[in-house]
């Protein structure tokens, strides 16, 4: 079993490398940072353009550039931006910002999603099921950038009606905020609520739909009938035998859900002015900056793959049939 998980991990590391290489290559091939530079008004002198080309290793073939960059990454140096700032300096802070958003979003999403899905399945075709279905359908049809903006408008409305800024939707802290740790925490929470909702709502909808259908599959199963025939009440059979089995397919979804989360996070960060990895990606592509783009890609790949690996572990923990081989 441990061997299996280890092999998967190795497989994932290889995939992450390939993904980063691909992103790096595509970015290097399409981006034209010099072109962007030349369009400046007034145009920079030719000498500084030449210097820039050298700095960015544009005179080298792409694979070599990747090897150079990757060589730095291994030593903890992610290269420099076009504006000549070291990426590593900013990286830690940005990862922190993003992870706070992701982890909270995914935790809330899974917990409430599973709960909603189970309730929905057990009460199939009753009012609560219809309500949950409608709720998740609307949320799944609302892209994060619309949902985020709507939440912003809603938060504005709440603030206006209360008269104070309870919910703050710009940035992750108030710049220059003074106070003790408790007040700091409060300030952070005020900033956190709306963006977390923007992320979590979609996740809840996503997981609840799958949990509902996986639970419905189990509802008709023979073993649930056996459990009842033993003398368990329907409710007890459902939660002990049904839910436990219905959770198994959810483990694999975890990896898919995380990919969704990363893309959603990008929008959320942009809309609420959080300077995380997603925001950086948009900045990087807009500035046609290969190093930023590749760094963010590496981060995304590692996140997705880690969640994929976690899904493997979960799957093995949940399903004895997998555990054996």
């Amino acid at each position, binding site marked *: 079993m441990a061997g299996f998980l280890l092999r998967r991990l190795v497989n994932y590391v290889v995939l992450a490398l390939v993904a980063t290489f691909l992103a790096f290559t595509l970015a290097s091939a399409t981006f034209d940072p010099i072109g962007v530079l030349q369009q400046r008004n007034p145009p920079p002198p030719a000498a500084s353009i030449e210097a820039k080309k050298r700095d960015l290793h544009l005179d080298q073939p792409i694979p070599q550039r990747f090897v150079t960059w990757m060589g730095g990454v291994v030593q903890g140096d992610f290269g420099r931006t076009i504006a000549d700032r070291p990426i590593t300096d900013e990286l830690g802070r940005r990862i922190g910002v993003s992870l706070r958003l992701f982890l909270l979003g995914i935790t809330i999403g899974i917990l409430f999603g599973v709960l909603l899905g189970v309730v929905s399945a057990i009460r199939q075709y009753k009012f609560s099921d219809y309500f949950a279905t409608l709720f998740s359908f609307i949320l799944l049809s609302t892209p994060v950038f*619309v949902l985020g903006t709507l939440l912003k408008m809603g938060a504005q409305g709440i603030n206006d009606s209360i008269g104070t800024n309870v919910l703050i939707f710009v940035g992750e802290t108030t710049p220059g905020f003074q106070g003790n740790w408790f007040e700091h925490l409060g300030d952070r929470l005020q900033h956190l609520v709306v963006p977390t909702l923007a992320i979590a709502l979609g996740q809840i909808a996503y997981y609840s739909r799958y949990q509902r259908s996986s639970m419905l599959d189990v509802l008709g199963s023979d073993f649930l009938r056996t459990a009842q025939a033993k003398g368990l009440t329907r409710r007890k059979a459902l939660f002990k035998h049904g839910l436990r089995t219905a959770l198994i397919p959810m483990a694999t979804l975890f990896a898919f859900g995380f990919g969704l989360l990363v893309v959603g996070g990008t929008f959320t960060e942009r809309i609420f002015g959080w300077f995380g990895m997603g925001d950086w990606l948009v900045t990087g592509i807009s500035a046609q900056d290969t190093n930023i783009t590749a760094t963010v890609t590496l981060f995304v790949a590692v996140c997705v793959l880690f969640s994929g690996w976690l899904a493997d572990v979960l799957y093995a923990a949940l399903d004895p049939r997998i555990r054996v081989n």
Partner: protein
Amino acid sequence: MTVILNEGDAAGTTGAASGGPVDAAPEPGKAMTRGRLVLIRFMRNKLALVGLVVILGMYLMAFVGPLLSKWSYDTQDYTAFLEPPYSEHIFGTDKIGTDMFALTMRGLQKSLIIGLLVALISTTMAAIVGAAAGYFLGVADKALMWVVDLLLVLPSFLIIAILSPWFRGKSWFLLVLMLAAFQWMITARIVRGMTLTLKEREFVKAAKFMGQPARKIIAKHIVPNMASLLIIDATINVGSAVLAETGLSYFGFGVQSPDVSLGTLIGGNAESATTFPWLFLFPAGFLVVFVLAVNWVGDGLRDALDPTSTRVRRKEKKDTKEKAA
């Protein structure tokens, strides 16, 4: 963002239970054809019907609406800047005096066309590649599985965003191809899985043992028996494609000016949503309603094509109530 795809879809059979003695047949003469049954089931699903009407209505509106309005998306009303909706401009105007109705319809047109084309191309590709990979296995199959794995790590959103500088200033059709190129893989994997199941079905074996060549078996027996899955998937894919396009366009990585889409409109106006809500709400509203309608239709189709659908119960209750009344 794909909503639940039921992989267990019964490959278009009329619910043949596996194992056990065979049940009585529907009485000859009274038996409903499968098509009729599906139609009846679909028509019964009110939400799906509403969804269908909404989708058709939107396509009609996007192309006929602009003809009925006296404003055009590329002319400005210099007497009305940033006006909220009123009789002259039913959706209001933007900051340079463009009629928001004309603009929204223009954006809707582009988004809907892109959605439709992407769905058609990607579903066709998915059917061909998935069925071939599943039937022949071998190298093609390995490659497909690997690409799908890779896409999980490297979200298509990211790839197209990175490539966006390359198709800036070129035809929007390139974007269609890009979107389609990254949307078929997940469906292809599901098609592959179903092909593996169908391949073991006895009618496919029978065809093989009578000497039917492989490509004919795929065309005659395998793909038609996945029709229900493909129809559902094509429907859902229209929604996903529109979401993908608007998401990219939101950041300026998708549809490029002078073209407008719902995404560029939403992206351009999100900042001013709290102060001039009509700029944001109209395009966003159309987007959400359209995707919602697509999802409803997809869900209705799945229910109608799924032999184990249990909606009958509801229907019957309603009938008895009506009779009692």
